[in-house]
């Protein structure tokens, strides 16, 4: 007899070794918290949005000098444009996240479900990459603004030799680069741990198609 037939015979016997949950057991279970990866992913994306929002809003409220400076810099059309763009991007990401979460359904087939979760993870990933790029760009940009707007700073820089300028730029780029790489590795680690199993199973199911 085929091994699986033997197993099937045993499998479909009336098993009594399982605990038989009563109605009230099941009622209690319904109201417990889920520990699904979609829920965790959802919390991560909310934390992501809140973090980056706070990072852009908090300095404004915490220092009045910064507040004045910021208000003054809105006169610059480039800065104003960038600010509007960044808020627009946040709105777009909220919309995309909402859409991709709505698409996740446990009643889809296994492959579709995995794809939809991975899509959601991608949306979060792009949002993170976008923020990292913005940070990276904002560093030379803020140097440039300071140079134009801040007389004192302008004076100091103007006295720098070419070599000193190069060292300054090199230093800024390296510090920013290391900071961003660390942040990126941190994200990779979080998602790597959370989605390890999903990724493995998705690869496995994709392999069946080749």
């Amino acid at each position, binding site marked *: 007899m*085929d*091994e*699986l037939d*033997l*197993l*099937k015979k*045993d*499998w*479909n*016997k009336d*098993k*009594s*070794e*399982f*605990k*038989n*949950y*009563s*109605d009230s057991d*099941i*009622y209690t*279970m*319904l109201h*417990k918290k*889920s*520990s*699904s*990866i*979609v829920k*965790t992913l959802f919390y991560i994306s909310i934390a992501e949005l809140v973090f980056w929002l706070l990072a852009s809003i908090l300095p404004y409220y915490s220092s009045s000098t910064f507040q004045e400076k910021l208000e003054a810099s809105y006169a610059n059309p480039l800065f104003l444009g960038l600010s509007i763009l960044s808020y627009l991007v946040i709105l777009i990401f909220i919309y995309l996240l909402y859409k991709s979460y709505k698409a996740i*359904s*446990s*009643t*889809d*087939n*296994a*492959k*579709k*479900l*995995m794809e939809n*979760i991975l899509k959601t993870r991608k949306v979060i990933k792009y949002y993170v990459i976008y923020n990292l790029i913005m940070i990276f760009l904002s560093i030379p940009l803020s140097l440039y603004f300071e140079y134009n707007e801040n007389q004192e700073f302008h004076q100091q820089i103007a006295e720098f030799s070419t070599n000193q300028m190069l060292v300054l730029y090199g230093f800024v780029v390296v510090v920013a680069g290391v900071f961003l790489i660390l942040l990126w590795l941190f994200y990779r680690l979080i998602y790597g741990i*959370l989605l390890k*199993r*999903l990724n*493995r*199973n998705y690869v*496995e*199911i994709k392999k*069946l*198609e080749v």
Partner: protein
Amino acid sequence: MNKELEHSFVELLQKHQNIVHKVCRLYTNNTDAHNDLFQEITIQLWRAYPKFRGDSKFSTWMYRVGLNTAITLYRKSKRRITTQEFDSVEFKIKSEEYDDTEEQQLKVLYKALHQLNDIEKALVFLYLEDKDYREISKTLGISEVNARVKMNRVKKKLKTILNP
């Protein structure tokens, strides 16, 4: 309305809970993990229940949500350190015509099942539950031909484990 929905759901799940237990048995290897996964599948079933239209059988619908939870959604719980692993003997109930070689074979087979990967387990599970290849392919999102090919490979794999 909500109470009514809850009541009908609990009644159905209570009746068909064996399906969930079987999924848990395949994907976990100790009692705590089993109960944890059971809990999560119950939550996922309940969440999806308003969308259940009854055009498929409740049990068929359960296979899909149950397997999806086990393969994809479930995040292993942290509290699972000191529990003892099941002995595969536990899976086996004493059959009336006690056959030693068959008993031994089953023991090895159940152990072999646990060595399969998550997708292979899903295939075997649906096969053991007497689902045809059309349904297996629809549940997993792969083609019927691929389901068949993969199933044959899994059978061979089990055979090798059993008769090395």
